[in-house]
């Protein structure tokens, strides 16, 4: 009897746990109406299907919120009601395909998908095409098919612009750089593009020499060990390129432990270039430890994708099918004046 009660209790506990966890993956809706009308009346109402591959970063929350914000502005401007159907695949490629099938069967007017797998998403694109639904990839490009539109960041030029600004900075201060590069995950095309962008400016400007590349795989341990070991094996290093300033806090602690943490203008300052202006990077720039970063503009990504989705849903065509947002160069000098940084909206930093 007692054993049965334990079983029932445990079963209930598991049910609650699974239920709560599944709510992150369950279909979410926001907008004026949760039901999807099969035939929008003369396009006075459109429904956008949004398929997230996963929702494990604050950035994704920011994208979704900004999309809703821009959609609301578009509603007011155009007098069209925009409904959303959103689902999340929790990093599962097959689940994302099934989620997109659901969007197709619900008859959405356009699909936006952040692909878990750039190649696998082509099957979903083909299914949407057969159903006559325009398909937009977001942030991660499809590989092996040409979808109706792609909206994302221009990761190569993001690194180039940060590199150019960094070269200007080193030259202005009469510094010849010897840098450690903390790479991202080599399976991530954005990470590879960033490294190539950095290398391009290095070759063209000659303002620094990259003496060590450490692949971090975005693993926090390696941000720390890579920094420390890089300085141990190359004691004359005076600059770093960090693939994402989301890892800045880890690098900051590592620099602190080896006595290399100093603000811009202080003796022994290590010149830092990075990417994204993520929450820790925003803090690093505000505090004057980091020098240059290029923003990963969630606000503008969302703006562009909503505009593209609206245009395609209305049956119109886009001027450009590939829309890449280049990001803006943010320095410790201009960070306070740079508008629409998602890290400011979603971070807890206070001066």
């Amino acid at each position, binding site marked *: 009897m007692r054993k049965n009660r334990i079983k029932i209790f*445990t079963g209930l*506990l*598991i049910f609650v746990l699974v239920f709560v966890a599944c709510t992150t993956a369950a279909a979410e809706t926001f907008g004026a109406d949760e039901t999807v009308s099969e035939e929008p009346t003369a396009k006075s109402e459109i429904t956008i299907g949004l398929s997230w591959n996963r929702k494990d970063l604050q950035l994704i929350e920011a994208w979704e919120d900004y999309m809703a914000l821009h959609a609301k502005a578009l509603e007011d401007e155009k007098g069209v009601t925009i409904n959303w159907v959103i689902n999340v695949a*929790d990093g599962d490629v097959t689940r994302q395909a099934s989620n997109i099938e659901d969007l197709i069967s619900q008859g959405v007017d356009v699909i936006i998908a952040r692909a878990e797998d750039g190649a696998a998403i082509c099957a979903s694109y083909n299914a949407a095409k057969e159903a006559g639904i325009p398909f937009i990839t977001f942030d991660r490009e499809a590989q092996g098919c040409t979808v109706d539109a792609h909206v994302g960041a221009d990761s190569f030029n993001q690194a180039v612009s940060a590199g150019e600004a960094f070269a200007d900075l080193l030259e202005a201060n009469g510094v010849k750089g010897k840098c450690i590069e903390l790479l991202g995950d080599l399976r991530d095309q954005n990470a590879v593009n960033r490294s190539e962008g950095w290398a391009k400016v290095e070759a063209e400007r000659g303002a620094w020499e990259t*003496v060590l590349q450490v692949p971090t795989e975005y693993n926090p341990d390696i941000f720390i060990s890579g920094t420390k070991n890089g300085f141990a094996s190359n004691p004359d290093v005076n600059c770093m390129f960090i693939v994402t300033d989301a890892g800045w806090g880890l690098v900051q602690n590592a620099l602190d432990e080896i006595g290399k943490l100093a603000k811009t203008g202080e003796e022994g300052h290590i010149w830092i270039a990075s990417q994204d202006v993520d929450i820790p990077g925003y803090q690093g720039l505000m505090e004057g430890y980091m020098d240059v970063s290029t923003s990963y503009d969630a606000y503008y990504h969302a703006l562009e994708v909503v505009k593209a989705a609206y245009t395609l849903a209305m049956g119109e065509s886009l001027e450009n099918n590939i829309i890449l947002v280049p990001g803006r160069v943010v320095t410790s000098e201009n960070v306070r004046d740079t508008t629409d940084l998602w890290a400011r909206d979603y971070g807890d930093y206070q001066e």
Partner: protein
Amino acid sequence: MKNTNILINRLLKYGLYFALLIIIVFFAYIAPSFITANNFIDMLHTLAPNLIMISGLAFVVLTGAIDFSVGSIAFLAASIGTYLMVVQKVPLIITLSVIVLSAMIAGFLNGIIVEVIKVNPLITTFGTMLAYRGLGYMIGGAKYTPIPESLAQLHNVKIGFLYMDTAVAILIVVILYLIQYRTVFGRHLMAVGNDRENARKLGVKTSSISIRAFVISGFFAGFGSIFYMIQGGYMTPRMGQGLEFTGIAIVVIGGISLFGGEGSILGLLTGIFTFYIVENGLQHIGVSPYIYPFLRGGIIFLAMYADSLKTKFHSLRKVRT
């Protein structure tokens, strides 16, 4: 034949130490900065939080089970802790206790599912790995959150020449070693891993031992997450990601058999050291970044292969005797 058996046995037992020595000599020869006391102290500092997190996992593996959810338990517990510390401004001592307690509850739930509902540990912990991480994201918002300064400033506190987290990690391994070999619980743990049915016949409460191993695994996952946050100064959404595989690989490299009942907790030190020393050495000699994943994968494969050879060899010997 007897001599060959002895040779194989010795090779399987001490081969790792020999390989480790060759690796150290190789890196020291190429990069003199590698073979310095500071580098080894730093390396121990970097690996300490992970060592704490997986030390309890070793107990689960010793029972012949597996726990894929260690990294997610650490993440969930740290998410709860960060929410309490940063958002609710709960006093530090209460928060730290809640982190450890919530991790123990997560471990207990794993144990109950495995032992009471009789779900395979691999399936159970694979499921809870996803569920716990999902819960953590819901609580913590999947963002990089700086921890309070009073806690973050402990990252460079030293005890003698060792960082605090290194000293704690070594102490934990020694305590767990004593538990393994000097307590009834430790002996029962090994008995369950060796032959569960026989252990049960001999009066060992096998389910209770297994549940306790999962609770211990949860406890150390939570405890380690505190040091992880201290070291980085942030609660990161990537905390514990990948630990489900590297953790098990480290345990196996350290000589604890995946089939249970064999190996010493002290082996964890060798296991984690081997794993990190290659990474560390490569960073010192500055090789192409594409070599890293190849070598990481190679080490895991060799460890698993050696474990399977060892098990096969011991089974053969048992049959012959």
